[in-house]
């Protein structure tokens, strides 16, 4: 099991909660970091050590 934290960039609190719930239901125990926009995401990810930037996951199918 990978213990790296998951960074979620989402400004809709309802969506954040739904994602947290989904992760819990899927027994994903990784730490979840939430950022509301790109700037915040950048500062958050630089705080966490040994960050390797994985490809961004667009977990929702609601494509524009």
């Amino acid at each position, binding site marked *: 099991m990978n213990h790296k934290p998951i960074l979620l960039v989402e400004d809709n609190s*309802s*969506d954040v909660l*739904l994602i947290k719930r989904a992760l819990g*239901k899927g027994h994903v125990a990784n730490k979840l970091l939430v950022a509301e926009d790109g700037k915040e995401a950048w500062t958050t990810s630089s705080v966490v050590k040994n960050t390797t930037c994985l490809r961004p996951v667009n977990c929702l199918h*609601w494509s*524009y």
Partner: protein
Amino acid sequence: MTGYSYIPLIAAISYIPLFIIVISSRPFHRRHLLFILYLASAIAWSSTSFLLHSSFLPEHKMLLARLMTVAFTWMAVQLYVFSRHYGYGNYVAGLAIGYTLLTISIALAALGYVPESVSVSNGVQLSIGPWFPVLFVPLIYLVVDNVQALVRKLRALTDQVQRTRVTYILIGVCLMAFFSLSNSVDFLRRLPIDHFGNLAAACVWTYATVQHQLVDVRSVARRGLSWAAIVIVAIIGYLFLYAVVGMATHVQQRALVTALATIAALIIGLSIYQLRYVFTRLVDRLFYRERYDYRQKLEDFARNRIRGVSNLKDLSGKLLPLIIGSLGCPHAYVMLPEKSIGDFVVEFTEPEPDSKSVLRMGQDSPVVDWLKRENKYLSCDKLDIMPEFRGMLAQEGMWLKALNIGGFFPIINRGNLVGILMLENKQSSRYTLEDINLVQTVMHQVAVTMEKEFLQEQLRKREQELTLSTAELQSANKELEAFVHSVSHDLRAPLRGIDGWSLALLEDYQDKIDQQGCQYLGRIRTETQRMDDLINALLQLSRVSRASLELKLVDLTAMAQTIVSRLRDSQPDRPVEFIIQPKLMAQGDASLLDIALHNLLENAWKFSSRCTHTRIEFGETNNEGDQAFFVRDNGVGFDMAYSDKLFGAFQRLHKPSDFPGTGIGLATVQRIVRRHGGRLWANAKVDEGATFYFTLTGAV
């Protein structure tokens, strides 16, 4: 040789000024040509008559008599042709008789029958002999026909100017006819009495021309002088060449020298053809003196520099001094319409007056009407002659008299009279036709320039409007894009929440909610899905309208086959027969055509779902010469009465419970087809299926 023999000479000379006037008048009409022919024949007649009656060429009297007889007939016929032109009705018979007479007289003279004998013992005595009636009777016919036609015309005419012109012609013709009658008496024929008629006619017509066409003697003299100068220089040059050629070749034969000199003169003459302008310019300068420079400037201004000046005020300021200088008129005025009432009042005076002029002309004044209608120079002389000016206010007439106005030039722009140029009479002389033509040309140029300026202004305005509306359109487009973004993003976020939390309820609290509650939650989820579909369809519709077209050759057959396989995958158990015509190609945007074709085939698939044996066709047909594609199914079809609602957004012809859908699909197809410059239409019958046709003539 008696004093009488000089009468024809004087007559011939008196025609020369007229000849010069007519030949140098512009524009040149057919009547000018006819008049020139007449003048030439009259001059020929008078000069042969002079030679006959004089003591010159005593051994050639018979030849001169023959020439004179022919010239007389020619003159009579040309006079008929020219003056009959102004008369009433057509004159084919007269023309035929006249030219037959001319031919007969030439033949008779050439054969020596006419005149029979000439004796010079006691004055020149001509005897015409037995052929006299052959020549005389047709002449009588011509005279009678001519006078009758002119009188009839005179009765029918109402225009005073034309009446005067016809009257003068009639007087001239009558004088000629009366004096020519003397030819019928042997005794009188001895004296050239008939040339009194010629002389009198010449005087009458010269007077008429000078009086009523405003040609002054100075311009005639000017033209005559420049021509005389050219002729003299030509003769001197020719003689010089003759001498040079004679000396250079040492040839004794005069004929050869003459020929060589003529050829050389022709070559030199043609190569320095431009020389005539030098003479004209020299003579013009001589005549106009200080006014010559003004004329040149005025012509130059009208031709070149007028373009930079746009409004009438600037123009008046620049033109008036030039006009005054070139015409030598004491004062010139420009009247412009007053803004409030529209009456014409004097706005500019050149040179600056001591007191402002009070002249004012009502917008309904007959002068204004006339200028508007005729668009040409109006001489103040006409105000007294023509009946239509009788309605002019006495006040206006008095003002005109007080200012000693000579005439008016209209300034017309777009069919409206926008200004009037008035000239004060010259102190010593009248305005000549040349003066008037000059100003008229300039005024015409002014009108053209103003028209051009107007059109350019119009163009500028349109361009501005266009730029403005383009900017508006761009901002509207941006707003639309912002709206689309907000719809896609902001509107969907709560929708996602509703769907997500409903799912959470269903999953986490299933044991606490009864079955009906679960069903309701399920409904909430379907409704949110439906709304999401609608939003998606709307976004697609707006994207279809905005996306830029990338045209290329598209394989519609392959496209249709891909779509069909996707449809089959969605319902693998459904037996559907697809007939797709091979090798269907079209010019268009691949992604948009894919959306359109997808919508059409999906509709066919959907509305034929209740058939036991579904058949869907995609092919090509011919619609009035254009290539048209069609998608045909044998499904439920629709009532053609509602076909106008078919392509509107959110318009559905079937209940959602029967066939699900957003009601936007065909609207999207319609937009795609229109953007390709094509047309979409349908043909259907209830329960017998529907066929949708579309053309793709080329992208717009």
